[in-house]
């Protein structure tokens, strides 16, 4: 499938070109206001939650391309510099052969060189940044302060990149010498590298009032020493010239310790932004984002007059049956609450209509015909990559079928409900197979025993959620859970298993208000792509099952069914707003 464009390509954002980022990124739902602030910000979220895309969209080269496209004037007040941390330079291990201080010096040097190069590279996207008259003065100052000779016959920023490249290469070669004590004497620090560079660049008239936002992506890949160094920089609170935006995963998030043994504090030194925002339906912020993303991608391939709902239509029988159930349950609600308010009736219908559909299906019936854009949004579990992945395979399937039948490849105008169902069930089945067979081969720190336990835990959760769907009196569609009675001796081991599941992104965690006012508690949401294979409704509801820690542990280790009561008291949760609407 090399010669057609699949609009739902979900490759890592760092592989996209500026114009593709502009094409795909939805500016309405972003964290630009945080990125453009002068505060230090940590953006946290698992793979696929849009961290890289957010950083790249705000980077100067993409903003310059955007301004160019829109005929607007580029604002150089805030200059966002994208610095990837998942590079071979970050993964180098020689620092660990040195005694601690020297190791820290070398680790900082590599990080500093990466930042300096990224600054030079970022600014070089601006063709007329420096006039011919200004360049010699700035070059002279750079040479004097940073202590190197810029190559002649190259533009200032290109020359700077060359010299930084050379210096980084020399330091790596020195470190690669086959001696444990190999060291690089001319290592740079933040104060002898980045700060003087920014200071010199401030001499360029167009940059004299600029604030540099250093955006470090995948900071979880930094080594321990680099993390401490970065935190020390963050603790430096004069943010007039620069600030940091640090993107990292939730699982394995680097600690907040500094080189001096202190710690940086949320609210004081930085603001923490969670990129995984809880969502509930297609009208929530995530639902709107999902819709915008799909709409924009469809437009890019020439599907101009169709909404995402029209492109991914719901199976008519499925829709009809759901509507039938809703009508019936509404009548039932009116009988239950003869004097009921519209809200009472609405709540009853919301909780029970979809459950009725699943309850009334014959035990021998095939899996429900999962289809429709709304289902895709729910299956994504609030992660953009999870939304795009099934869409990608659906689109691919349609094009493959066109080719197999000898038809000319034409722009796909719709994904039929049958293909949607087929792909959803296939991806769901594959996910279960992966948990069962592939976990211990692909998830770091997951032994065979862990893999078996995770499978049994999720298998029993599926059984519990199925029981609930068919029999629970008040919250039948709860497919999230909280953990109660955590004082059992194996609770820490259970959390270890859940950590593996989070690492594999078959489980997500959020915090929300508990029933006890004022308290926050963690709740767990299994990846909803798991549920179609088990005949469950991925369209959850605003409720979570409360499960005892010991029961989850027994489910994982002894494959014991999680106790179910049709009338147990669940935790109803409020619809969570996102960061801007809470």
């Amino acid at each position, binding site marked *: 499938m090399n010669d057609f464009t699949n609009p739902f390509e979900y490759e890592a954002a760092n592989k996209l070109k500026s114009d593709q980022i502009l094409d795909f990124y939805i500016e309405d739902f972003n964290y630009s206001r945080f990125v453009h602030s002068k505060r230090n910000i940590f953006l946290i979220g698992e793979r696929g939650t849009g961290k890289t895309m957010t950083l790249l969209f705000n980077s100067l080269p993409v903003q310059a391309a955007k301004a160019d496209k829109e005929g607007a004037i580029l604002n150089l007040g805030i200059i966002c510099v994208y610095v990837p941390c998942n590079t*071979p330079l970050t993964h180098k291990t020689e620092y660990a052969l040195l005694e601690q201080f020297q190791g820290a010096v070398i680790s900082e040097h590599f990080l500093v060189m990466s930042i300096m190069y990224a600054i030079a590279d970022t600014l070089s996207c601006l063709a007329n940044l420096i006039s011919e008259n200004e360049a010699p003065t700035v070059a002279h100052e750079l040479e004097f302060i940073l202590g190197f000779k810029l190559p002649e016959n190259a533009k200032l920023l290109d020359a700077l990149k060359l010299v930084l490249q050379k210096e980084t290469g020399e330091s790596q070669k020195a470190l690669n010498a086959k001696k444990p004590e190999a060291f690089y004497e001319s290592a740079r620090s933040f104060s002898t590298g980045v700060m003087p560079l920014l200071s010199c660049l401030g001499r360029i008239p167009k940059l004299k009032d600029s604030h540099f936002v250093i955006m470090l992506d995948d900071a979880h890949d930094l080594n321990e020493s680099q993390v401490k160094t970065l935190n020390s920089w963050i603790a430096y609170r004069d943010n007039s010239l620069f600030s940091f935006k640090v993107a990292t995963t939730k699982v394995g998030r680097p600690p907040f310790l500094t080189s001096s043994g202190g710690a940086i504090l949320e609210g004081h030194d930085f603001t923490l932004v969670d990129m995984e925002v809880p969502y509930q339906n297609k009208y929530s912020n995530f639902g709107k984002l999902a819709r915008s993303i799909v709409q924009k991608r469809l437009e890019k391939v020439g599907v101009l007059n169709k909404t995402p709902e029209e492109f991914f239509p719901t199976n008519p029988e499925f829709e009809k049956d759901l509507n039938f159930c809703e009508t019936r349950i509404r009548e039932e609600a009116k009988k239950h609450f003869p004097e009921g308010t519209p809200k009472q009736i609405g709540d009853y219908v919301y909780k029970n209509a979809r459950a009725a559909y699943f309850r009334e299906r014959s035990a021998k019936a095939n899996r429900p015909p999962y289809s429709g854009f709304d289902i895709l949004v729910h299956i994504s579990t609030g992660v953009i990559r999870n939304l795009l992945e099934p869409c990608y395979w659906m689109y691919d399937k349609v094009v493959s079928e066109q080719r197999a039948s000898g038809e000319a490849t034409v722009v796909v105008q719709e994904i039929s409900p049958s293909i949607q169902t087929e792909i959803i069930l296939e991806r769901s089945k594959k996910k279960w197979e992966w948990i069962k067979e592939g976990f211990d081969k692909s998830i770091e720190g997951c032994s065979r025993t862990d893999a078996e336990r995770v499978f049994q835990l999720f298998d029993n959760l599926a059984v519990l959620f199925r029981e609930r769907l068919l029999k629970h009196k008040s919250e039948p569609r709860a497919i999230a859970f909280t953990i109660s009675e955590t004082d059992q001796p194996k609770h820490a081991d259970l959390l270890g298993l859940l950590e593996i599941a989070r690492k594999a992104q078959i489980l997500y965690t959020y915090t929300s208000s508990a029933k006890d006012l004022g308290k926050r508690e963690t709740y767990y949401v299994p990846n909803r792509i798991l549920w179609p294979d088990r005949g469950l409704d991925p369209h959850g509801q605003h409720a979570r099952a409360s499960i005892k820690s010991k029961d989850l542990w027994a489910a994982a280790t002894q494959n014991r069914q999680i106790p179910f009561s049709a009338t147990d008291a669940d935790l109803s949760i409020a619809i969570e707003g996102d960061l801007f609407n809470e």
Partner: protein
Amino acid sequence: MNKHIIFTAASWEPRFFSGFERILTRFTPERVVMYFFSEYANLSQANRERIRSCCKTNSITLEEFEVSFADPIGTWKVLYATAAAWCNGDSSAVIDITTMPRETTWILFGLFGDRAIPVTWAYHKPQGYNNTWLSRDPDRPRLVPKMGGVTKLGFPIKLLLTSGFDVERARQLILFFEPEHVLVGIQTGIQFGNKLLNAARHLQEFQGSSATKLFEIDAYAPDCGYESLEREIKEHLADSNLIMASLGPKTSAVALYRIHNKYPQTSLAYAPSKEFNPDYSFGIAETLYGQL
């Protein structure tokens, strides 16, 4: 005449001891340096005892050193110390790579290469592998100390893999390094169910992806597949940071070392596993020898 020193890594596999005996029919070493990994010390105990006994019978000095998969830096220091201590101008090293982790093999190759010590490597094929599973519980992939290459700032990562029986290991490396492009060298031949268990699985996984190029390699050829690998990487050297990992036949690690040695800007990566099958392989078949 050079003095031979054998370097080997203790294993519980039958071919470890049988292979050692076979090497002794070809070389008369002055000394044997045997590394053993803490994580598998119990499993390798019986075979280590046999090596001790064999060395005693043949009046060969045996040195044993404990190293650890979990501590690549500590392991590097042990390898450095032993290589420096036992190899000098009139020595040559015979490295049995059969049961030696690729990371250890590469480090030793690099240390001896740096000192211009002649190296002969030996690899004993098994009669067969366990057909259920070989390794599991992967640890975090890592660059090999001193062999992480020379990174060019601002250039994308490209990943070169020689494929083995486990597609999940390839997936893990791809997820970890997030390369812009992946080159997968697939072993040719029908040995050990290769067509079905390696080639077909990798074709199914990667064929059709525009970000992946599949090519054939014969790691059992005299050059261990070096020419095929060099042909594939040449066009990528200038515009990327190339990371290379061997998941396929052990001899492909020899070819990758030679590539790294010629193009030191490339990085060697190792993807450790925390668990190996106690019945990993059975028997011993042909032994391959080569020189760096």
